[in-house]
Structure formats: structure tokens, C-alpha cells
């Protein structure tokens, strides 16, 4: 079986613990979910980059997550908090039943929940929430399905933003060219596994 790309949701250096949060989606994540405590799994990582927060201190920041794009933002908010930023989180889910990590985020910062079908929180998309809030931010960070990232990228085009993007991968290390994305750089592309998955919103064309 091919390896599965999963983000690091949180880590604790003291106890050598790394947290991943994933949605059982297909065969691979199903297998993962059936592993038992004490078992071993073969991991290649950490690979690629993460959100770069150097210099982001005492600013207003909006964090936008969609579905399984939510987990990698958890540790991000923790770090943003520790750097004295004013953080607003907007999390979008398909439906009430698919919501997770709401409490964890609310414990950290001001959090808005939106559902596509309106069964919980705001009835609509994360971009609708952003529009309604009409706040102004210094930076945004986003992770979620490509469609959502594209909409956010467009809506917040005048704000300094970073997005974490998904693509089907082969090697995970930059050797196979499976996971490229068109980009505004000298090569014309980036490799998501190696150069990303986090990019400046202006760099990549989704």
C-alpha cells in the first residue's frame, strides 16, 4: 500500500508524543484506525514544511479550517496564542455529525463553526462567516479542501495569507512529481510534499 500523508496535529516534546487526527476515509485510514495501542507503524517523516510563524506577534489573525483540514490548525492556534496574537478561528464542516475539535478550539480562542447544511452553527460556508464578520486581519492561515482554499484565497486576496494544500502523492519526498501545483515562481510549479504543504497564498495557483 502507498503511504498516506497525514499532518501533525500536535506534539509534546517532553513525553515524545505526536498527535495525528484523521478521518477514516478509505482503505488506508481504515487500516490505521484498526491498529492497537502498543502496536508499531512505519512512518516516514516529518516531511515538508509547516506554518511559519516567525515575526507574527501581537497581530490579528484569522485561522480557517475545513473538515480534515482542521486538525493541523490546532497546534498553530496554540503557537499563535503563545506569540500574543488575537486569533479568530472559523471552522467549516459538512454537517453537525461531522464536527470534531470544537471544544478544543473554543478552549483556545474565539471560534465560529459553520456547517454546509446548517445543522449546527452558522448555516453556510466559512467564506460566508468571514463576509459577515467584516473584521480586518493582518494575516490568515487556512487548511481544507481545495475548493475552500480557492474561495478563501480569492476572498482574502488583500491579506497576507498562508494555505496548506492537499494532493494525491506518490513518494512524499519530491522525487516523483506526483504532487505538483502551478506556482508563481521561476520553475512555474511547486512540489507540495517537499516545498509545502504550506505556501504563501500568492505563490500557488489552485
Amino acid at each position, binding site marked *: 500500500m502507498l503511504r498516506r500523508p497525514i499532518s501533525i496535529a500536535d506534539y509534546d516534546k517532553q513525553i515524545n508524543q505526536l498527535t495525528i487526527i484523521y478521518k477514516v476515509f478509505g482503505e488506508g485510514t481504515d487500516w490505521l484506525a484498526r491498529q492497537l495501542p502498543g502496536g508499531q507503524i512505519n512512518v516516514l517523516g516529518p516531511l515538508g514544511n509547516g506554518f511559519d510563524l516567525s515575526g507574527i506577534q501581537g497581530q490579528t489573525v484569522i485561522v480557517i479550517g475545513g473538515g480534515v483540514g482542521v486538525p493541523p490548525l490546532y497546534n498553530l492556534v496554540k503557537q499563535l496564542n503563545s506569540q500574543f496574537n488575537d486569533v479568530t478561528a472559523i471552522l467549516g464542516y459538512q454537517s453537525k455529525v461531522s464536527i470534531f475539535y470544537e471544544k478544543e478550539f473554543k478552549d483556545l480562542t474565539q471560534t465560529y463553526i459553520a456547517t454546509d447544511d446548517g445543522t449546527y452553527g452558522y448555516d453556510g460556508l466559512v467564506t460566508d462567516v468571514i463576509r459577515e464578520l467584516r473584521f480586518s486581519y493582518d494575516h490568515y492561515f487556512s487548511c481544507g479542501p481545495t475548493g475552500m482554499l480557492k474561495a478563501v484565497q480569492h476572498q482574502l486576496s488583500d491579506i497576507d495569507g498562508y494555505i496548506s494544500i492537499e494532493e494525491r502523492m506518490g513518494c512524499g519526498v519530491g522525487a516523483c512529481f*506526483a504532487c505538483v501545483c502551478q506556482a508563481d515562481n521561476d520553475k512555474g510549479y511547486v512540489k507540495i510534499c517537499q516545498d509545502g504543504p504550506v505556501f504563501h497564498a500568492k505563490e500557488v495557483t489552485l
Partner: protein
Amino acid sequence: MNLSVQLGGLTLKNPVMPASGCFGFGQEFSQFYDLNTLGAIVIKAATGEARFGNPTPRVAETSSGMLNAIGLQNPGVDQIIKQELPFLEQFDTPVIANVAGSSEEEYVIVAEKLSKASTVKALELNISCPNVKEGGIQFGTDPELAYQLTNKVKNVSSKPLFVKLSPNVTNIVSMAKAVEEAGADGLSMINTLTGMKIDLKTRKPLIANETGGLSGPAIKPIAIRMIHQVRQVSNIPIIGMGGITTSEDVLEFYWQGPTQ
């Protein structure tokens, strides 16, 4: 134990090498192990100009295999020589350069340039890429075209020439014979089998290019069969590939008489 092998004029420390396209230009995997331990390094396909390749998704998983339709993305032969090959000079491992193109002229130009690069010790003529609209595969399915192309490339290159055969043919033996007669110093077998996967949510092909090349353990029996058939009629070295994941797999190929 001496594992060295002779490969169409080259002497390799051992018969293990990565397959083209699975190894980029070597930089990435050099972080994981010492490339000096490899018998040879086969780099990703080079074309005349830079190519962006196909839209994504480009890969999909299948039972004991995967589909890929990268579409020959590469920075072009000049950039490869300038930017990628210098990194590989530090290793005591011969580099085999994979040559691709859309026309006879393009193949010839790329081959000529690569064969002049000192780091390149042999060429692998990729007449079997199923993932680009024009180029590659028709040369790999018609013995007459394959003969001509091999012949032309052989004329411009002083380095050993391996021709990489496509398994998407009725008669692999006639392809092998054609390129051998045209002067190939060896064969690489096999490239991927053209396949497709349907996304059950969209009911459309999952890979943006619709079809992709099937590789991995799923195709090993086909690789073994084709190498076996060709071995009966030809004595030139064969670089075997297709689903090799364990040492047992290496032996299964090795005992066919190919070199790798």
C-alpha cells in the same frame, strides 16, 4: 561476495538500480541512504524543452500497484545537464539517463546532448511512456518505428544504449528483436501497463489524464513473462523492473538471466 555485473560495456558494483521516474535526479533519496551503494542511478526522463506534465491528480492506488500519469515533467535536457547532473558527480555510481521526446528529432537531440555529458555513462531510450498524448508510445508499439529511432539515436551517441520496452504490445519479442537489430546494447523491461481507475464519487477517471501507467507488484508476472520470452531469442543485457520490492523479487528477475 562479488555482486558486480557487466552491463553493455559498463561494470556495475551490483545489479540493483532504481527505475527511471521513481528516483527524480537523486537528490531526495540521497538524504535516506548512500547512493554509492547502488549499482547505477537511472534519472528521470529528459525531453528537449522543459515540460510541466499533466494536470493533477497524477497518481492513484490500485491493488498491489499504482497508476501514474506524471506526463514527463522535467526541466528539459539543458537544465538537467546544468542543474541536476553535477550533484550526481560526487557518487561512484554510474548514471544512466532516460531519454524521451515527441518526435524522432527531439529524441535524437536529447540523446546527443546527454551522451556528451561526462556524468552520463549510458542512455535509456524511453519509447514506452504511455502518459503523454504525442510522443513515446507509438515508437514503443511499432517495431519499424522503434528500429528507426534506435538506429538514429545510436548514430549520435557514443555511450551504451538501452531501449526501454513497453509491455502494451501483442508481441514483445518482435519489439526486442527490432531494437537489438538497430544496435541497442541492452533492453530495459518493462515500462508500465496502461490502466485506469474510476472515482466512485464522481464516476469519472480518478487520474486527470484519465489513463495512467500501472506499476508495482501487480505487474511482476507480466514483466517476468516478457523478459523470459525475450531471453529465449536475445543475449543482450536486460535491465529488469516491474514490481520489485523484496530480495526474492530480485532473484525472480535475476534467474531469468537479465541484468538488474
